[in-house]
């Protein structure tokens, strides 16, 4: 599903050039449920954004679902984001003035789905995340967990093969966080490939693979991983590694 080789990403902020990714090789097969862990600033979000075609790498190759992404123009990338990928943000990123229904409808509008079909689909999606009775609510009238479920429903709108989530439980209490991960597990079992950033040991535990990122590189040395995981278990937070 995802095949990255030698991915680099540099940010030019004035005089300082930050290299967020320094040559990441990563392969994720269809049907996997993978968590990305690593200290803050290690490049997790950068990697996720590139995986989701929200950003382009400075260097390296990226193949998504068998298609090389580097040569695509903005319009083609937009199509990929719309059809193949569902993105869940830590901060939900819902339009504040639109209802749950209208928020979920957006990717379907951009995907030019016909009105009737679109409306049925929105109702179905919100039902699937347990919000069938919240269609007309605006984000401000929803709890954090409910907002994130609206965001997940939105991410699933066009039936993407790949679901990407950047700390989806980061802004939630543990109860709502668990419900979100339950939902992810369900989606994974029904065939969606999921890549998720997390700081939470209990969340990472439930995925079938953990990728450990440090200083813009995937850590592969067994000893380093063991060291990281040890301190992680101790603190329940990976950051301290």
């Amino acid at each position, binding site marked *: 599903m995802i095949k990255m080789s030698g991915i680099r990403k540099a940010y030019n902020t004035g005089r300082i050039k930050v290299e967020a990714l320094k040559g990441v090789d990563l392969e994720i097969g269809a049907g996997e449920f993978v968590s990305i862990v690593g200290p803050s600033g290690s490049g997790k979000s950068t990697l996720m954004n590139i995986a989701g075609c*929200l950003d382009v790498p400075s260097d390296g190759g990226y193949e998504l679902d068998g298609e090389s992404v580097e040569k695509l123009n903005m319009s083609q990338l937009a199509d990929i984001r719309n059809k193949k990928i569902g993105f869940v943000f830590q901060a939900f*990123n819902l339009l504040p003035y639109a209802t749950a229904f*209208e928020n979920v409808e957006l990717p379907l*509008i951009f995907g030019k789905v016909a009105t009737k079909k679109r409306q049925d689909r929105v109702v179905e999606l919100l039902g699937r995340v347990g919000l069938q009775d919240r269609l007309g609510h605006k984000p401000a009238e929803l709890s954090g967990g409910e907002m994130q479920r609206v965001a997940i429903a939105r991410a699933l709108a066009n039936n993407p093969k790949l679901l990407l989530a950047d700390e989806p439980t980061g802004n939630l209490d543990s109860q709502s966080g668990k419900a979100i991960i339950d939902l992810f597990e369900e989606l994974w079992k029904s065939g969606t490939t999921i890549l998720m950033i997390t700081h939470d040991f209990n969340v990472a535990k439930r995925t079938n693979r953990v990728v450990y990122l440090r200083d813009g590189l995937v850590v592969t040395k067994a000893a380093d991983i063991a060291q990281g995981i040890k301190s992680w278990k101790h603190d329940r937070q990976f950051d301290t590694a």
Partner: protein
Amino acid sequence: MFIRQIFRDMRGQKLRSALTLFGIFWGTSALILLGAFGHGIHAHQVKQFHGLGENIVIMWPGRTSMTYQGLPKGRAIYLREEDVSLLKAQIPDLGPISIEYQNWGISLKRGKVILSSQIAGVSAEYGDMRNVIADWGGRFLNETDVNLRRRVCFIGNDLKNDLFGETDAVGQVVEVNGVPFTVVGVMVKKGQDSSYSGRDEDKLFMPYTTSAMMFGHTMADVVVFKAKSLDKHNDVKDQAYKVLGKKYKFDPLDKQALWMWDTAENMEFFSSFFWGFRIFLMMISFATLIVGGIGVANIMYVVVKERSREIGLKLALGAKKGFVLVQFLLETLFITFLGGATGFMFAMGIIRMFPSFDLEEYVGIPSISNVEAIASVSLLMLIGLAAGFFPARRAASLNPVQSLKM
């Protein structure tokens, strides 16, 4: 569907849309009103200036300052009624001309009102030339009045108020030194910022023939005349010196034998002032446009900046750049158009209603040509559109990640 979404997005953001709308409304109406009042004041100034009459020559008797054909200087030169006929006969390019006899401190009586006023004896041609125009329902003195030495009079609007108050004066009788005169007209209110013998609104005008008979004038106080066309103006003045110089034996170049005051000359003198005034107005309009433009641009810019997260999100969800931009453009177009149109109508409404506020004496009547108004509104809307569109285009050209972070 697309349009529906735009309206939903706008409805969802009522406050922001309303503020933007108001900003553009305000900018537009301020621009138009300023322009219109500028025009009005300008026109008012010009009218005031012409209150005495446009391009007329006022000629007084004087004293020679040069010796001529053996005659000494310092001789008094007088003007008489027959000089008017002489000038008419000798100068083909001469337009209207009138003798003017002035009588000061004449008692006027109407009912219980008695007052002292200034009286001018003039010809029928005097009215148009001197901008002494009859108000609705009346007329100025005519040829017959003059030929028959009728006891009729035309009165200034202020004098009319003093004598008659609110009641109609035309057809009524005023006693001039005890002799009854019929009022044939009342002067239309006018601006007059210069004079040679008091303000016309305070005067009573009667046929010069009647005046001569009543007060026994033989010498004119003033002769007022005008050339047939402005390009003959100086020519006619020179000719008048020649014709009268020949008759009264003074050097045609002796400008003190007869004094001439010339409102055309004044006009030339003041035209640089008006020119300056016009430039000043243009600068004000331009400054308003800039200020209005900056205001509108600023509003749009803030709106777009605030919304670049929204743009980023839509892009992240797979919206095409073009889709986002067209939505933004239409939305901006709608708001600027609505704001511009309501501002335009508001300003035009005020301009229409203005005459009923009774302030035109001070600032004139504001007016603006449709072309000018529409041009400035369009320009403002264009600025609004550009200010809304270009930042939006920039936001839409970034990576979704970047616009999401803005």
